[in-house]
């Protein structure tokens, strides 16, 4: 019996090639999308799960309460972590991370490590990082110990043994290799190849008397990423409440004195990748992961699969007319209804099975592109097998059930006569399916257009700072004096219109707590800050609205001059930019000075955020970049010359640079990912929906072949007939536009809320998207209609 079903399904498949192609191809596309997104989601959800104790690991993040706002940092101050550990036995272990960019070398082999990690010796008690050689309990205890990953060992030592060797740190210090670990898994929220014992940091600074006091004892010095391992059965939230009560008590004095205090938020480690969007997130961890996109991608992939299922339902049902004889006959011979249902379900399972096999090829082809665009490293895993299996069953059932129920309900006599009348409910249902398919396609078209629009807007928005033709050369770990030599050298190059030292960066600049003139003694506020030299404003073309720029003519500018932006003027209640000049600003720790100029508000961070108060000042020891404005012609030679200058400046650090424009664009990485994925999905959904329409039109028109013949004999024109045939379908697309527009509007509105600066959702997007859908649908149907309409009427009349 089963063999018989398969046999008939197989032969039907060959006999109706168009029908089979549309179904299998459509399903394969839908399945491929689902599999790809499954791999993606699986990868996203797997972050940090390699840690055996992942369920008990939390990160202490800090909510810094300031007079008028709360800032939420991913790291916390060393003392916060330390005090909590001392007072709560629930905390079994704590490990604190700090990152540095100091260069590491061995035998003159020097690499610019993206990040070098300072870590407490408890690292291996908390995280699961298997050691290849060395003793995890001791490796990070002594200062100047370094643990390398296998990749780093390869890089510095090649095949030589690395254990016990001395490496150079910051050119002058010695580090002893005390351990080698396996590479940190890709799905870890922090990545690094070199780990140095954290007490090295204190030892380096032991000459600096303030350091310990300032750095390790100051509650607000939030720069250590602190992870705690809780005892079994301790709830993170419960501990968090207790910890905050404790901190409130500890900081009563501070709160009174400066109006600031810290609360903590214990973040489960597994939530960091997808659910954490905090300030000062670990570099690299802030990119990509976002639970919203996981939801959006999953939903879209499933919707495409549904579109393909709709094709199957619609085409099978339409085609059931041609199969009525077979159905009738089987019933006459004595088939039970259940047997027929089983047969048709079996057919859809066969179809989805073939589609799955095809999709395996698609997925294999698509994975490299997906990885390229999204920056993931997905591979096909064995888990996919189970997904395929369940998809085959689901699709087989979902797509096959309706046609099976419908076809098996035909009365045998009627079906033998070929006189099946699809009921009104059925026709309505099937039209509903087409409307459903096109609604999804249109929503995706609108969505993608809008994302394109917004990204375009971002790229072309006047920021108030000219980011074009500007390149930043990284000075991290480079001696301050060498930086200045480089600056002088480069300024002489005629291909460079300007050079400036600074630590400006779109990707994140520092905060400082300060007391502006006019505020009460305890009204400290946080303020964005970066330090620049006297050329910065000029070169970056930032407009001054009052006062003056920093100048070498005023020697006091170095120590006691500030430039603020308009937002700061407003926030500090200084009435106008003119009034602001001469106002005093006092840092919570350190610098004091007066406002000498006010700049027009410019976007110094992501357009996701409003422009907040900003402080610009001169502070040479903070500079980490030489920023250059280049002449437009021949960038490659200019870059070569800059590199030569870099080498001549006497630094051994690798040459690293980035164009400001690229830095800026990288702020919208997840949006760009979304554009790539959604763009592809939109294309596929339209393709699959149109395939369905194409098939449906083919069947319907075939059914009406005789009618068309008669009409033509009676004098109908080709265009008349095409119009007649297309009308029904276009009506459905039109209904889809009406249904999808408000849904798309709502979704777009939600998405845009993430941006402080955004495009208006204009009506033309809907108009153009709708028109596009209509046009695509019309072309699809038209192709069939034209063929039928221009056929010789005598021929069509003979088709009986």
């Amino acid at each position, binding site marked *: 019996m089963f063999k018989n079903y398969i*046999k008939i399904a197989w032969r039907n498949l060959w006999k109706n090639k168009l029908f089979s192609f549309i179904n299998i191809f459509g399903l394969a596309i839908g399945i491929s999308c689902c599999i790809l997104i499954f791999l993606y989601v699986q990868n996203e959800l797997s972050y940090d799960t390699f840690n055996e104790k992942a369920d008990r690991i939390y990160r202490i993040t800090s909510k810094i309460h300031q007079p008028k706002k709360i800032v939420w940092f991913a790291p916390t101050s060393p003392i916060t972590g330390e005090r909590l550990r001392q007072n709560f036995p629930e905390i079994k272990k704590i490990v604190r991370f700090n990152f540095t960019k100091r260069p590491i070398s061995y035998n003159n082999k020097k690499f610019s490590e993206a990040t070098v990690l300072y870590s407490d010796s408890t690292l291996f008690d908390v995280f699961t990082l298997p050691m290849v050689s060395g003793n995890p309990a001791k490796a990070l205890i002594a200062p100047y110990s370094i643990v390398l990953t296998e990749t780093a060992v390869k890089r510095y030592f090649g095949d030589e043994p690395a254990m016990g060797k001395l490496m150079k740190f910051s050119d002058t210090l010695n580090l002893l290799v005390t351990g080698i670990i396996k590479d940190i898994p890709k799905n870890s929220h922090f990545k690094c190849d070199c780990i140095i014992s954290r007490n090295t940091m204190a030892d380096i600074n032991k000459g600096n008397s303030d350091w310990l006091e300032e750095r390790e004892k100051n509650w607000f010095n939030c720069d250590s990423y602190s992870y705690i391992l809780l005892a079994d059965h301790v709830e993170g939230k419960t501990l968090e409440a207790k910890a905050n009560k404790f901190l409130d008590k500890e900081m009563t004095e501070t709160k009174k004195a400066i109006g600031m205090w810290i609360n903590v938020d214990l973040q489960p480690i597994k939530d960091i990748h997808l659910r954490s969007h905090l300030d000062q997130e670990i570099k690299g961890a802030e990119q990509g992961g976002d639970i919203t996109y996981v939801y959006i991608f999953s939903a879209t992939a499933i919707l495409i699969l549904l579109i393909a299922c709709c094709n199957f339902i619609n085409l099978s049902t339409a085609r059931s007319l041609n199969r009525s004889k077979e159905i009738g006959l089987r*019933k006459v*011979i*004595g088939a039970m209804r259940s047997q027929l249902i089983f047969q048709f379900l079996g057919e859809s399972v066969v179809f989805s099975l073939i589609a799955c096999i095809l999709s395996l090829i698609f997925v294999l082809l698509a994975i490299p592109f997906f990885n390229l665009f999204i920056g993931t490293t997905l591979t096909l895993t064995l888990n996919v097998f189970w997904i395929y299996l369940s998809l085959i069953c689901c699709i087989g059932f979902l797509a096959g059930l309706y046609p099976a129920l419908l076809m098996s309900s035909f009365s045998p006599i009627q079906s033998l006569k070929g006189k099946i009348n699809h009921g009104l409910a059925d026709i309505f249902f099937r039209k509903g399916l087409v409307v459903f398919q096109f609604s999804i396609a249109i929503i995706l078209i609108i969505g993608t257009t809008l994302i394109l629009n917004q990204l375009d807007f971002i790229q072309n928005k006047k920021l108030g700072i000219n980011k074009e033709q500007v390149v930043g050369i990284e000075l991290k770990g480079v001696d301050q004096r060498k930086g200045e030599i480089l600056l002088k050298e480069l300024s002489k190059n005629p291909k460079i219109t300007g050079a400036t030292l600074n630590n400006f960066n779109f990707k994140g600049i520092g905060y400082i707590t300060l007391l502006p003139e006019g505020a009460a003694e305890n009204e400290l506020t946080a303020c964005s800050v970066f330090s620049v030299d006297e050329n910065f404003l000029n070169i970056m073309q930032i407009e001054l609205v009052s006062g003056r720029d920093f100048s070498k003519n005023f020697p006091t500018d170095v120590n006691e001059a500030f430039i603020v932006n308009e937002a700061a003027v407003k926030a500090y209640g200084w009435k106008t930019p003119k009034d602001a000049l001469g106002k005093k600003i006092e840092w919570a720790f350190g610098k004091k000075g007066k406002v000498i100029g006010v700049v027009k508000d410019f976007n110094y961070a992501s357009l996701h955020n409003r422009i907040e108060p900003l402080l610009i000042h001169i502070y040479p020891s903070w500079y980490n970049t030489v920023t250059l404005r280049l002449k437009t012609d021949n960038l490659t030679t200019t870059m070569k010359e800059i590199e030569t200058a870099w080498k001549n400046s006497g630094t051994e650090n690798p040459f690293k640079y980035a164009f400001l424009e690229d830095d800026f664009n990288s702020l919208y990485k997840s949006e760009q990912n979304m554009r790539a994925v959604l763009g592809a999905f939109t294309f596929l959904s339209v393709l699959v929906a149109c395939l369905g329409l194409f098939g449906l039109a083919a069947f319907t028109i075939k059914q009406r072949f005789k009618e068309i013949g008669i009409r033509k004999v009676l004098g109908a024109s080709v265009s008349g007939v095409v119009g007649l045939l297309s009308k029904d379908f276009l009506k459905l697309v039109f209904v889809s536009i009406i249904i999808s527009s408000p849904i798309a509007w709502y979704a777009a509105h939600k998405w845009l809320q993430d941006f402080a600066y955004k495009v208006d959702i204009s009506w033309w997007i809907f108009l153009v998207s709708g028109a596009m859908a209509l046009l695509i649908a019309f072309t699809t149907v038209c192709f069939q209609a034209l063929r039928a309409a221009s056929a010789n009427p005598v021929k069509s009349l003979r088709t009986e």
Partner: protein
Amino acid sequence: MSVINITDLEKIYRTEEVETVALNKISFEIKEGEFVAIMGPSGCGKSTLLNILGLLDDLDGGSFKFNDIEVSDFNERKRADMRKHNIGFVFQSFNLIDELTVFENVELPLIYTGIATAERKKMVDKVLDKIQIAHRRNHYPQQLSGGQQQRVAVARAVVNKPKLILADEPTGNLDSRNGNDVMQLLTDLNEQGTTIIMVTRSEHDSRYTHRVINMLDGQIVTQNIKV
């Protein structure tokens, strides 16, 4: 023993505006081993009657005993069950499944009755031999002549060894030579004990039968029994 026994059988077709009384209180009995022809002008209700006798359609009134069992209140499931074990059908337009070969078409009823593969093969081969079409067992219906197709259809109707064969104008689409072949086949089957009820318009075909039931406007006019 009677295979079919109907009394006051009624069938009414209702559409929005008209009621058609397709069968108006019909009663008759058909004994085991009979070969009966049903004749009458177009639209008199022959096909309707045959469909009811074949348990393909339900009736609106009267009683219908099949093998002495009252079946007028049978549900679809029971009817399908009764059909597949007891009744074979032959249609004017052959109704072979285009996607299946001759062999597979004939095999189909056996699959539904749940007979094992090996046994099936033996049974099908035997009937195909009998209708002399065994050499074409792997052909598809489109590759056969009308007469051959109808012989295959008859083979399919009898492969299950049903008690009763219902044939609705089995020769209607055939020329006289092919028609005679089919009639001869039916006669042979009848002689081996199968009861046959056949709707026909052809006087010639009716001569093969024992008895002719003449119908007009949903009623029986005469039932002449020949020897």
